[in-house]
């Protein structure tokens, strides 16, 4: 099936694509609860061997979007193609091609790790030796092969999270969807999960990774879709998103006193400035040349400057620029 720009299914895909070779195409998804529109015209495309980050604050509509893609919710509008097959018309087929890692640790705590995987594998039609083999492969992949007979109740939080991922891999899906899979775990476990996901990408899996941690998205994702209030506000590669930043470098200033923000924006070298809770964030063309100018200007305003720091612009800065709010608000 060939889609071209302008086709409803291709909405969000930049150019003509062969849908059967694309892991996932979600186009124009919308969902309402009563009068409340929680997702509005969301489009996402994920190629095999690609990790697409779905980034946004809590309540942005990420989980609802993921639920529609997985077939847990029926979209009010829009279409979903998984491996070239319409997910609404052929949900049995497309569900077999998708592996979902829910936000919660969805495991039976009193069944062994292996038994959990065998159960979830059986739901996808696996049986017998093939099921056992797939379960062992999945455990191997997440580094839990030596704990196969142990119950999740005896696992650390990080191990449970890895088993949670393994449960979505046991049927060898083409598309893997992870809904905030690193919530509440230590950095070491998080890195271990990232290694697992990079290995899966190398195997050609199409992966959607939802998070509200920009650092995770920056490290892991090939492309990033930023959502807010149920809408996509930006969608591009990391490099492409950075080009939308008002500046590549920032100056953060903690201050006391009355600030004339409009006047600050007129200072030479200042591309953009936001203030919140007496913290000023200024996007600069050239930090080395412009920082001193800005600090002198602030001093002239009789503001008390308590702390100054500089940094490279990131997704947080971009989100701030796009919405006027911080990602973790």
């Amino acid at each position, binding site marked *: 099936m060939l889609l071209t720009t302008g086709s409803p299914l291709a909405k969000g895909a930049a150019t003509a694509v062969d849908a059967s070779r694309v892991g996932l195409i979600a186009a124009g998804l919308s969902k309402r609860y009563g009068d409340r529109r929680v997702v509005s015209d969301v489009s996402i495309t994920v190629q095999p061997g690609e990790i697409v980050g779905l980034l946004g604050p809590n309540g942005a509509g990420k989980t609802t979007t993921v639920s529609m893609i997985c077939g847990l919710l029926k979209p009010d509008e829009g279409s979903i193609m998984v491996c070239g097959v319409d997910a609404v018309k052929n949900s049995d087929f497309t569900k077999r091609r998708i592996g*979902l890692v829910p936000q919660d640790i969805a495991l039976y705590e009193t069944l062994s790790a292996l038994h959990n995987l065998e159960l979830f594998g059986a*739901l996808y039609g696996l049986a017998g030796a093939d099921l056992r083999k797939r379960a062992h492969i999945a455990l191997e992949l997440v580094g839990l092969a030596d704990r196969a007979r142990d119950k999740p109740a005896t696992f650390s939080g990080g191990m449970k999270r890895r088993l949670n991922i393994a449960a979505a891999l046991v049927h060898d899906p083409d598309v893997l969807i992870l809904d905030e899979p690193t919530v509440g775990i230590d950095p070491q476990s998080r890195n271990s999960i990232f290694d697992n996901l990079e290995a899966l990408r190398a195997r050609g899996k199409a992966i959607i990774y939802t998070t509200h941690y920009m650092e995770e998205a920056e490290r892991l994702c090939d492309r990033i879709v930023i959502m807010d209030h149920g809408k996509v506000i930006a969608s591009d590669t990391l490099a492409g998103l950075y080009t939308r930043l008002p500046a590549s470098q920032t100056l953060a200033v903690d201050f006391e006193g009355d600030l004339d923000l409009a006047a600050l924006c007129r200072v030479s070298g200042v591309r953009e400035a936001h203030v919140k809770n007496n913290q000023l964030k200024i996007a600069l063309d050239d930090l080395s040349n412009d920082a001193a100018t800005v600090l002198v200007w602030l001093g002239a305003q009789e503001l008390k400057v308590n702390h100054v720091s500089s940094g490279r612009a990131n997704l947080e800065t971009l989100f701030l620029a796009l919405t006027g709010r911080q990602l973790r608000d």
Partner: protein
Amino acid sequence: MNAKLTALVALVRKDIVLFFSNKRSLVITLAAPIAVAAFFGSLFAPGSDKLSKVPIAVIDLDRSTLSQKIVSALSADAALAVTPFSDADAVADAGVAKHGQGQAVTQAMTLVQNGKLRAAIVLPVGFGAEATAALFGSIDERKKPQVDIHYDPSQSMVLGLVRGILAQHVMQAVSQSAFSVNSPAVARLREEMQKATDGDANKISPDLKRDLSAMVDSIAKVQAARASSADKGAAAAAPGFSMPFTTNATEVTSGIDKKYNSYAQSFAGMSVQFILFMGVDFGVGLLLARRMGLWKRLRAAPISTRLLLGSSIASCTLIAAIVMSIIYAAALAFFKVRLEGSIIGFMGVMWAFGFLTATFGLLIAAIGKTPEATRGLAIFATLLMVMLGGAWVPSFVFPEWLQTVSLGVPTRWAIDGLTAMTWRGLGLEAALAPIGVMLAFSAVFAMIAIWRFDWEE
């Protein structure tokens, strides 16, 4: 206030606030004991007129004036609900009474065996005449007329009640008959004395004859005086001399050699109660699984929601049946409970109740919002069903209206079905109604559950 006390107060305050902030749990905590206490209090309140009438049958094989009077008195008694048997049946029974059990008696015993009646009283042929004679103590105890009482052994306390009421009405009727002005009994006594004297002068001495005649004359005199007085009720209360009949109480079980086993009744009640509690745990488990995100993972698989709910119902039904099998295995092995009725019927009741348990669990999962709130509500509902089902107290002690209400409670049918297939020894046909009712309830529970089930918390 020192730091430790401050911490203590803060912790206690926290628990109190948490407890009272859960309104649903609070209502259940308060409502459950009040409801249960009110229920038992009303059942056993002294002087309560709410207690139901004891359903019995009276088969009058005698058809004498006296026996009919007794049947009328029993029928009018506030404590009894007498099932009438047609004259034709009783007359037919009277014809076969000497050779065996008549149709009316058999019918009445079947009703007792089925639990529809608590007892059946059989007034034998010749009861009226023999009881009057027996009143004067002139008849050997063994020759007194014998009233058969066939009773439900699971409710043996009724036997004492029936015996007492029967004695009261027989004594009233017999004494009225014996001491009335133109009492046929007194006339017959005179006649028999005369015959005895006429036939053989050695049989009775003139002195004894004189004394007996004087006694009979005095009785007639006293009764004449009483009859002329305005207080006719006093005659009715005239004391008798001795109990003019004996009773022969027999348990109505599945066979002559089969004895009632009280464990069969208690195992039915308790297995129903605790398997229902298991159903509550099953329902709460569904809510916990939903909270843990397990339902999301399961629903992401290529299986329908009907299959998911169906698998839950199937597994819970299977577990309930296994649990009940083990409970009854223990009852059979250690408490001499026997499946005297249809084994297929027992299996049917067991599986139907398992299905009922599963759909009940699903229903409470569908209605409940959170596991915490649902547990309290479900336990309350279970206790109500168990109480009304007669698992704790036999339903016959309930007020009549409550007995009617209890027919709308599926546990009543479960317990009735289990007892019918165990000690009552009834056939498959007796299991069909309980199975049908439980399946109907299950279908309603399942439909409501599927309609109301919320996949997201």
